[in-house]
């Protein structure tokens, strides 16, 4: 059984002014112990998708359709009480800016202890011992002393580690990470990535990691799902996506990411701007910027194609490799760790 499964997810934000079509039919699965990276630029719907997994979207203005299940539990139809147990228990989340996720008036130890006591009902002393263990687990130097520190007394990297410790306090099976390294300095980012990778392996957690950075995805992902304008346009094992992208958007993104290009020529940028999420184009959302644009791209949203087994690209210009793989119904991430180690 997959750890988490999302099918046909649609999310709309409705305001008096306009309707924003944030997520338009997203589906994927995450197995236990797998790291799925949702890669996309701002406004692609990657964070919204992540939040839908915990139902963290403002209920009044959001219309959600589709199904989200975590360990067989239906998240979208769950009563509030069960949702509270799910959040922080089975599923935990870490954010981009730890300062907004940590409460400035409580010490680190109090905050972690509080979370532990709420979910396990253990005593104050036990909770504190567990908090200390967690801080040591995330490699915070002189952890015992930091237990009594307030968030503002810590550096950015330490704060992020504290937030990871808090997320891990109730041994979640699925960790959601929303650009947790974006706000960090380069030398700190790599430390946090290595830490997350190690913890994920040791604890056997599934992880969904949202990022806009191809390099970060290369460092942490098993499988990658590339989002554009609220849809997954390409997905597959990380090596496949980065070394042989099938979708022109992924290829363009890779070409426009500066890494050792020749200084003598321009970067191969993708033309134009991302679409207005209030007025999406009728066919393929990427068509207006696409170098491979064909007539049909304007009218029909491309169906998922599978150039290689386990590698999906939703593009009219991509051919199927064999009819056998066409059986899948939704654009589902079907990569596994086996395919990666085989490379």
């Amino acid at each position, binding site marked *: 059984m997959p750890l988490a499964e999302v099918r046909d997810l649609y999310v709309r934000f409705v305001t008096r002014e306009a309707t924003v079509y944030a997520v338009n039919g997203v589906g994927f699965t995450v197995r236990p112990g797998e790291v799925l990276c949702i890669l996309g630029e701002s406004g692609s719907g990657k964070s919204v998708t992540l939040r839908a997994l915990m139902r963290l979207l403002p209920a009044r203005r959001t219309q959600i359709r589709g199904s989200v299940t975590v360990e067989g539990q239906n998240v979208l139809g769950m009563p509030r009480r069960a949702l509270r147990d799910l959040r922080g228990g089975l599923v935990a989340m870490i954010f981009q800016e730890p300062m907004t996720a940590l409460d400035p008036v409580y010490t680190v130890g109090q905050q972690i202890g509080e979370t532990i006591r709420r979910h396990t009902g253990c005593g104050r002393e036990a909770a504190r011992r567990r908090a200390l263990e967690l801080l040591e687990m995330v490699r915070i130097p002189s952890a015992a002393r930091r237990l009594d520190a307030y968030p503002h007394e810590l550096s950015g990297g330490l704060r992020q580690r504290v937030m990871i410790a808090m997320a891990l306090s109730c041994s979640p099976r699925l960790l959601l990470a929303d650009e947790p390294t974006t706000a960090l300095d380069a030398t700190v980012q790599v430390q946090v990535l290595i830490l997350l990778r190690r913890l994920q392996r040791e604890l056997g957690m599934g992880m969904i990691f949202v990022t806009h950075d191809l390099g970060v995805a290369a460092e942490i992902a098993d499988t990658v799902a590339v989002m554009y304008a609220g849809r997954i346009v390409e997905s597959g094992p990380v090596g496949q996506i980065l070394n042989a992208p099938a979708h022109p958007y992924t290829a363009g993104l890779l070409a426009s990411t500066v890494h050792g290009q020749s200084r003598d020529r321009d970067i191969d940028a993708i033309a*134009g701007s991302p679409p207005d999420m209030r007025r999406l184009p009728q066919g393929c959302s990427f068509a207006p910027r696409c170098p491979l644009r064909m007539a049909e791209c304007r009218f029909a949203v491309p169906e998922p194609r599978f150039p290689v087994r386990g590698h999906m690209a939703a593009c009219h210009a991509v051919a199927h490799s064999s009819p056998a793989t066409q059986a899948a119904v939704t654009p589902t991430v079907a990569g596994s760790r086996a395919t990666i180690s085989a490379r």
Partner: protein
Amino acid sequence: MTDYSSVIPAKAGIRGDEVPAAALDPRFRGNGGVIKTRSEPFLEEQAAPATKVRGYWESVFHRLRRDPVTLVFAVIVLLIVLAAICAPLIAPFDPYKESIVGRLKPLGWRGHPLGTDELGRDMLSRLIYGGRVSLLMGIVPVLIASLIGGMLGIAGGFIGGRTNTAVMRTMDVFYAFPSVLLAVAIAGAMGGGMANGMLALSLVFIPPMCRVAETATTQIRALDFIEAARASGARTTTIIRYHVLGNVLGPVFIYASSLVSVSILLASGLSFLGLGVRPPVPDWGLMLSTLRQSIYVVPFVCALPGLAIFITSICCNLVSDGLRAAMDVRM
């Protein structure tokens, strides 16, 4: 200045670069062999002209138009204002004409739809004329306070440092008194009358107005575009005129609109206490004061000036709330 006209305007920088197809999926070759990616800096022109471009105030009105509640109350306020302006045309009687016989008559008595007061004057006419004074007392002090308080706040906020401290601490002294008490004290010290009442109210409103303007200015001042303006060599006065005023006007306007109802209430209070308009000038607060002995004779008539104050101030308040909602847009 560099002569920009000599610079090639279009073609420069345009180049169709060939991406080695090996870097991509080999099946792309069927699609013309190579992928053309263009990297000219003139891409944005392709962006379709999106929605109609609206200026800030235009977009505020656009949002207001779609807010029926605010619109209804705005119409009521407008009607009250119109009635006050056109008082001589619509008032059925002379508001000063007394009648010994027709004193304290109930609603609907002999052509007086709202009855008469303790000197036999027509209530409807007096209420219509009274609106003139009340609205004037509601708007003029707020205007004066916005101007003076706004200027002080912008100056203090933009210059910052000790100047700002001096301005704001002075304002804090006034803040220490409850506004009603302060208004009564100032009006009392200067003696009654409409002009003094307005002056008293203006003084009461300057400190909060100043604070609103100062807060907004301090926020704006920290933004990069002010620094960019300085970097292009603009002087402080120029920056304030072109970059600060437009951004501070919104919050000041919202706050001022919410003060109008407060001002109407305070002005009525002053008149009620005999510190505002002098009789026989019709004014809602004053009418309330003189009619209060007759509350057991014609209760409904006596309540009318209070009702007028209530309706006007609540409508002003609701319109101000709607304005706030329409103007409070992150841009």
